[in-house]
């Protein structure tokens, strides 16, 4: 499978598909299972300073062509997460996702993830349904730069920055990440959304506002990666609505060095990674590509 090897800045992965944050990655055993199912790496659940039960149920439902969620970043807190990481990092590359409300908090959390053996950290600057965190800090280019810089000063491992599509200044934010020394950009997180139940005359989810993911967001994600490719030269990791190898190829050809997926696990099962790996190999064979890198950004040419 050497043709599937990819590099994102300083780190390389044997397989290009990575488990997106928040899907099957809250416990050590789960992350191990995903690595054994064909994923090249796993991004952990976004972890904060303290245990957080997240938003109350209902916080998830399927919608046509995807799903919505407002989990509210449930996690056991960074200290308890040490145990999960200890189990997971023995099996393969784990990228530690963190969220915070200040540059100092991000730096501290990232430092702990590095101590736990994460091969990189991913800053969640893009959760659309957690007040005071995520998207609220991630749509201000100056704030983004300050956070990235603080984390870069605190850790040696690569710093990935996950961005939201809920903005018209994505390229400016991307440039801020690059200028602050960020090692890679991950795009996209979920789109801000809502579902209302007419019979009750009320929004379905307890948090009302939620994030949309899955098949329906792919064209938006591909466009976001396309725009970022035109704006920055650091690597981009594409995510949003990838269900099969052709979806993954769209992201790669828009400029992504690797890709992540989450919602597809719902309908395709955990072996979706293995299926995509086989699909990519067959495609590369048929179309004469020797590596993922050779295909990266070709749509721009």
């Amino acid at each position, binding site marked *: 499978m050497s043709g599937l090897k990819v590099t994102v800045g300083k780190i390389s992965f044997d397989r290009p598909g990575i488990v997106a944050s*928040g*899907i*099957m*990655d*809250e*416990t050590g*055993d*789960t992350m*191990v*299972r995903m690595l054994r199912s064909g994923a090249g790496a796993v991004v952990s*659940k976004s972890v904060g300073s303290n*245990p*957080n*039960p*997240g938003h*109350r*149920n*209902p*916080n*998830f*439902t*399927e919608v046509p062509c995807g*799903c919505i*969620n407002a*989990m509210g970043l*449930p*996690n*056991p*807190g960074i200290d*308890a997460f040490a*145990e999960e990481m200890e189990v997971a990092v023995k099996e393969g590359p784990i990228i530690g996702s963190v969220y915070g409300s200040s540059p100092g908090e991000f730096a501290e959390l990232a430092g702990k993830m590095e101590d736990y053996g994460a091969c990189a950290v991913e800053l969640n600057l893009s959760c659309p349904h957690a007040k005071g965190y995520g998207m609220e800090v991630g749509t201000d280019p100056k704030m983004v730069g300050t956070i990235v810089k603080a984390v870069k000063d605190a850790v040696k491992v690569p710093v990935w920055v996950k961005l939201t599509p809920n903005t018209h200044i994505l390229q400016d934010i991307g440039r801020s990440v690059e200028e602050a020394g960020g090692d890679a950009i991950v795009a996209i997180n979920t789109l801000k959304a809502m579902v209302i*139940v007419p*019979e*009750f005359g*009320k929004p*379905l989810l*307890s948090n009302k506002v939620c994030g949309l993911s899955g098949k329906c967001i792919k064209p938006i994600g591909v466009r976001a990666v396309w725009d970022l490719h035109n704006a920055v030269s650091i690597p981009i990791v594409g995510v949003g609505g990838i269900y099969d190898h052709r979806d993954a190829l769209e992201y790669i050809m828009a400029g992504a060095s690797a890709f992540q997926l*989450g*919602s597809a*696990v*719902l309908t395709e099962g955990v072996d979706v990674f293995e299926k995509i790996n086989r699909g990519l190999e067959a495609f590369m064979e048929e179309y004469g590509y020797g590596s993922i890198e050779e295909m990266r950004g070709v749509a721009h040419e």
Partner: protein
Amino acid sequence: MSEAIVTVKSIEQTNKYSKTIRFDWDAEAKPGQFIMVWCPGMDEIPLSLSSVDDEKSITFKVIGPDTEALASKSVGDKLRIRGPYGNGYDLSSKRILVVGGGIGIAPITPVLKCKDVDAVFAARDAGEVAYADPLGKEYCKNHWICTDDGSMGEHCNAVEMVKKVLAEHEYDEIIACGPEVMLFFLLKYLNEIGMKCQFSLERYMKCGAGVCGACMCDEHRVCKDGPVFTGEQINKMKDFGTGRRDACGTFVSYR
């Protein structure tokens, strides 16, 4: 899976502690599968189907705010449900003994209607188990009742009852649903005698659909890979009988 707004057709007191809500919903479902139930005024919760025909039902023990909210529903009220989720029981073994403990009796009763099986109904007292007696009479060749306080049937626990039954009857597989302590000691015994089994497990659920990772028991998603697991699988689970994850994902030990 599908989602639906269903209308409460009837709501009745099933036993001293539980209520049953019936509603029409033509989704295909198997015994052992569950749905996520919600309406304004409560959090969404997982409940097993206690009937899997076109007229479906949920039977729940009133133990907290959400089951209380459901218990206060009246005929004509609406519920928003999604599912059915999970794998359900594999009923391919020939001679099956079904074991329901406490509130675990209700979700296992649809099995009685799908297949000729014998059953053990175990509960705290007569108030909790009496409703199962007519079901046993109607659908099973043999059924046994036991209570912790001796107020109905044999005066013993579920595991002791199963031991007595197995001394006199032969089965190919045991299918059980009930509190984890009951399942823990039942599995221990079934391992000793080398009996095949399937148990339905419970963990804290959020998405119910196999994406969020809230309901993990070791590396298994109870909502999607389960809730029914084989004895072989459960024997390898270090979380089984040991502890479970709370809403934060923190592991909470039973002891």
